[in-house]
């Protein structure tokens, strides 16, 4: 039987923190991403190839999270803005000062294209009972981040396994 508090149990499967990107998908970041890893895939550099293969330019699939990352600063916001807020909520809820991310899974659906405006939401999928690992004692949680475009088509899902913990003696 689960020992989860009812308020945490009530969050499982619920879309939280739905947000729409602060800017549309644009080719500058596509080219910066390719430049950073020296990715010469002609899909991203040659529009004739992109037209033939993908029906026009697309973003590299692994840029999924890029489009939703907040500006470092913008009017009305102060301080660092956190990306995976449910993860930090769980740390706070269970008073676990440390955390690691274990496996990270990316699943890609409809291609992301320049001009798309991406929206995402975070979904807490599960929280484990208390576990003790070599790092310390805490809980695992699984969080999905779902991404969709302005047509409501799913473009990708990221899944994170986080372990929040307290070190021995902490």
């Amino acid at each position, binding site marked *: 039987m689960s020992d989860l508090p009812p308020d945490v149990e009530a969050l499982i499967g619920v879309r939280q923190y739905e947000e729409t990107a602060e800017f549309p998908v644009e080719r500058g970041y596509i080219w910066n991403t390719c*430049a950073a890893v020296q990715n010469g895939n002609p899909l991203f550099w040659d529009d004739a190839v992109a037209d033939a293969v993908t029906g026009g330019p697309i973003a590299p699939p692994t840029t999924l999270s890029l489009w939703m990352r907040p500006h470092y600063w913008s009017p009305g916001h102060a301080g660092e803005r956190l990306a995976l807020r449910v993860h930090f909520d769980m740390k706070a809820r269970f008073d676990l000062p440390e955390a690691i991310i274990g496996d990270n899974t990316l699943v*890609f659906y409809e291609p992301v294209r320049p001009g798309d405006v991406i929206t995402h939401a975070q979904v807490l999928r599960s929280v484990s009972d208390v576990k003790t690992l070599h790092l310390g004692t805490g809980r695992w949680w699984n969080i999905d981040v779902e991404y969709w475009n302005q047509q409501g088509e799913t473009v990708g899902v990221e899944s994170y396994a986080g372990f929040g913990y307290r070190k021995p003696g902490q």
Partner: protein
Amino acid sequence: MTLVLDDVAVGQQVPPLSFDVTATIVVLGAIASRDWRPMHHDHDFAVHHQGLKDIFLNTPNQAAWFERYLTDWTGPCGRLGRMTFRMKGSVFPGDTMVLEGTVTDVDVDDTGCGWAGLAVTLSVGGDVKTACSARIAIPTTADDNPWSRNGDQWNP
């Protein structure tokens, strides 16, 4: 050249990619992925506040390296469906990272889409820093194009 599924077999090795990581590469990758956290661009923060050797490659940038590695192999018709990775250690400026991959399975799904599964590692000096498993769609024939699939014809 675009790979087709008949060119792929379980146990096949993907040609390795070796790359000398510099501070510029780490910072470029972090900023390109809009990751503003200081451990990816601020040497003083990484060393004196986090007790690390140096700034290090961030997670989305590593995903981009894996994507580049896989599509260098498949060509532009290769369509990434899924990747899972686990970071075991950090990659710092001055490291020579090596990406290596092995085909773990080859199949055609119920919709006729061809897939290769791969185990990929990113290593430095023989130590695996990140382990990745990936599933990438590969044309079944020279006329096939996985990018033309959507909806229930695309099951990554």
